[in-house]
């Protein structure tokens, strides 16, 4: 589906948990998260986590240079402090990759 949208001229980024399928299907831009299936953006109610993943997906959209690139998100499912990640981002004036 990402490929069809891309062909129509709409840049896409796909958040995937199933790396094997990503390698087979090759969407144009992929953010790979090591989360349980069915929760690509994070846990229900976990606002900070969802925000971090969405921001990362948009970052991949902005910075990907190679079609088919898969960016692996480094986060752990439950033990990551997503609030701290957002706080760090808010205090960094220049965004780095």
């Amino acid at each position, binding site marked *: *589906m990402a490929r069809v949208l891309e062909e*129509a001229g709409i*840049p896409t*980024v796909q958040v995937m948990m199933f790396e094997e399928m990503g390698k087979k299907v090759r969407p144009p831009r992929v953010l790979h998260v090591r989360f349980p*299936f069915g929760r*690509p*953006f994070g846990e229900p109610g976990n606002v900070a986590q*969802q925000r971090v993943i969405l921001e990362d997906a*948009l970052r991949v959209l902005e910075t990907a240079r190679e*079609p088919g690139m898969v960016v692996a998100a480094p986060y752990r499912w439950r033990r990551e402090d997503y609030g701290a990640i957002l706080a760090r981002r808010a205090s960094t004036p220049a965004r780095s990759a």
Partner: protein
Amino acid sequence: MAIDIRDLLRSPRGVAFSKIGYLRSLPEEQVVEFLNGLFRLALESRESGDWEAVVAHIEQWEAAAVAALGARMQAPPVDAVPWAPWERPLGSATVALITTGGVHLTDQTPFNFQAEEGDWSYRELPCDLRQEDVRVAHSGYDISGPQQDFNCVLPLHRLLELERAGRIGHAAGVHYSFMGRIPTKWAEIQTAAREVAERLLAAGVHAAVIGST
């Protein structure tokens, strides 16, 4: 997360760890290894009161089982990866979200998740979507996530926050949901995706974030 063992036995696909059913993709000796590990960890966890190790064990084996399944899955013939270059500042872009999680409004026809060949229709979701208006019709993953909070699969509230913060130009007025089970009807998938692409372009959307399930 509390799991009632009766729910697990009755409808294993409707609760957490529903992918554990894919252990059937693995050879028997690996299933035995999973069960032995699970039993051992459960005994340890009962002593310590910390069930993290059990959760991690199940999640690891879920992933391994799904990987084995994935190795056998069909995919359409793939050559060059299509590419629409990203050229505008995010702060002036209109962004739409797409989910394959079977999300629909209460007054929309549910996806037919039991159809043998899948259901590749799509639903339009408004940007002022509320949790109470959402239903989830899908049998291929643990739907309890979006049933509690649709942002797990379609982070619309987060997108609107980014709009308010000026990080993106606009959240699109309309977002899209598919029900991504049985992805083998390539022609139907292509047709549906092309229709959605046309609607997105007509609505002035500059980019789409797709969440897999």
